[in-house]
């Protein structure tokens, strides 16, 4: 049974800090983290409108309404469970995420193992982001979580660190798709250090004010809204800072099709299909795809010296 009836059908702009606080309190209660309440309330969770693109953008065809909860939780690319998007939700229902911890190491001064409860103490923020899949569809997803930069700063990277490598859980007993040996499991991903520090880069732990459903990457996943969805690795268990660019799963499988950067770009096609337009889930007509998924103003400066058709 999907929880679509339980989901609040409010738009991102209507998510008031109070509503977020209340739903978060429910989450904390259910997670048995009563001690965290006062700390979170003290943080004063902000509802930021960072997801909104500049209004002056002529390419912006229509307003971004949040995609319904049942679509976000019923249409998932999560090959660890299934290559069929609609099968991920049922197959992931029994997935156990408690207890969970993330090992953070590599080129850092303060490596450590962070239990999920500890990660939830980083300042929680509300972010409604567009998500553009490399396959040509998109959604608008109201996430809650913490900025990855806070965690990275906490472990104090060495000056030699230039990249961040993410590793997802490897557990073929729980993740039947991992028995498919055509994929180099576990899923891994990477970011350049400045990308990881960018304030838009989020570690999401909730969706629509509810704990992240298993099919969306519970208990915590990366969200990098200006990159194609496959960069946003789910069920993270390990984060390492490295000097060399880390290997990433889709880049390993097909390097000419899935680049390390994978920035959303309507002018750089996937070799097999155009990236100029996209289908927003729930809409009848296609939308033009925006450079950096509409976050050009915030992120373009990081790539000013790069040829985006070479470093795709």
């Amino acid at each position, binding site marked *: 049974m999907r929880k679509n009836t339980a989901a609040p059908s409010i738009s991102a702009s209507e998510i008031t800090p109070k509503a977020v606080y209340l739903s978060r309190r429910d989450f904390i209660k259910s997670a048995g983290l009563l001690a965290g309440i006062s700390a979170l309330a003290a943080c004063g969770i902000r509802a930021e409108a960072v997801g909104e693109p500049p209004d002056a953008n002529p390419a912006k065809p229509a307003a971004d309404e949040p995609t319904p909860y049942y679509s976000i939780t019923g249409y998932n690319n999560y090959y660890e469970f299934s290559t069929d998007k609609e099968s991920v939700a049922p197959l992931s229902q029994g997935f156990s995420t408690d207890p969970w911890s993330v090992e953070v190491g590599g080129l850092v001064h303060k490596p450590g193992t962070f239990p999920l409860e500890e990660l939830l103490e980083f300042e929680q923020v509300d972010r409604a982001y567009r998500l553009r899949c490399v396959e040509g569809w998109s959604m608008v997803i109201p996430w809650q979580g913490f900025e990855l930069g806070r965690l990275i700063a906490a472990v104090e990277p060495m000056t030699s660190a230039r990249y961040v490598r993410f590793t997802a859980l490897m557990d073929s007993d729980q993740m039947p798709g991992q028995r498919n040996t*055509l994929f180099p499991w576990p899923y891994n991903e990477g970011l350049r250090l400045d990308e990881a520090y960018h304030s838009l880069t989020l570690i999401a732990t909730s969706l629509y004010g509810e704990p992240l459903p298993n099919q969306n990457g519970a208990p915590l996943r990366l969200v990098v809204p200006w990159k194609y969805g496959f960069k946003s690795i789910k069920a993270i268990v390990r984060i390492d800072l490295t000097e060399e660019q880390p290997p990433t799963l889709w880049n390993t*499988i*097909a390097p000419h099709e899935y680049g390390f950067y994978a920035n959303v770009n309507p002018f750089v096609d996937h070799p*097999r299909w155009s990236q100029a337009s996209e*289908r927003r889930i729930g809409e009848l007509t*296609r939308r033009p795809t925006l450079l950096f998924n509409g976050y050009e103003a915030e992120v373009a400066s990081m790539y000013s010296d790069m040829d985006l058709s070479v470093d795709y």
Partner: protein
Amino acid sequence: MDSSLVDETGRDRERGRATRLRVLVHGLGLLPAASVLVRVLDGDLGANPIQATEQALGRAALYFLLASLACTPLNTVFGWRELLNHRRTLGLYAFLYASLHFYTFSAVDYGLNWTLSKEAIFDKPFTLVGFIAGFILLVLAITSFDAWKERLGRHWKSLHRLAYLAGGMTILHYTWAKKGNLLSLSGDILQPVLSGLLLLLLLALRIPFIRRRLAAHRSGSRRTR
């Protein structure tokens, strides 16, 4: 043994009769269309209904094309002669689903936006091979009538061997529709690879040498019984 003679005599005998096999062929032929229609009416096509429809119709086209191409080899191996009467029907169902697949792509997905869909079809090998396979099926569907068969004479058979080319291109299109890499055999490639192996097997069973050996083996074993 020339299958075309078997075909002619078989067809004359069976024409127009509602044999059990014919009912089954049409039942199976209409099943994907009925299933898509029911799912549309129920709103049961998931979060991305246009893509779900497109993919269901495309898969149906591939399955009927493979079924059509399987008739002759199945007769060679098992002596199931009655199947030969249904090669054309199965091929026409493949054409029907390929047409509906293309219609969904161009009219529904791309909303008849010619600039966008022209770019989407012709700029990339992925869509171009699918389009050419569909065009081959169109030509084969038009020339599938008896009148065309007589008119084209011995060329008809060569022309209709293009069904194998259409099959190969359809499978390539299917492979490229999924996120995988055929060269390194990694990613989401299992179903396209299995369909490709099936097509190669069907093609191998049509090689005259293999076909004769199998036919001889079959008639030999029947005689000893």
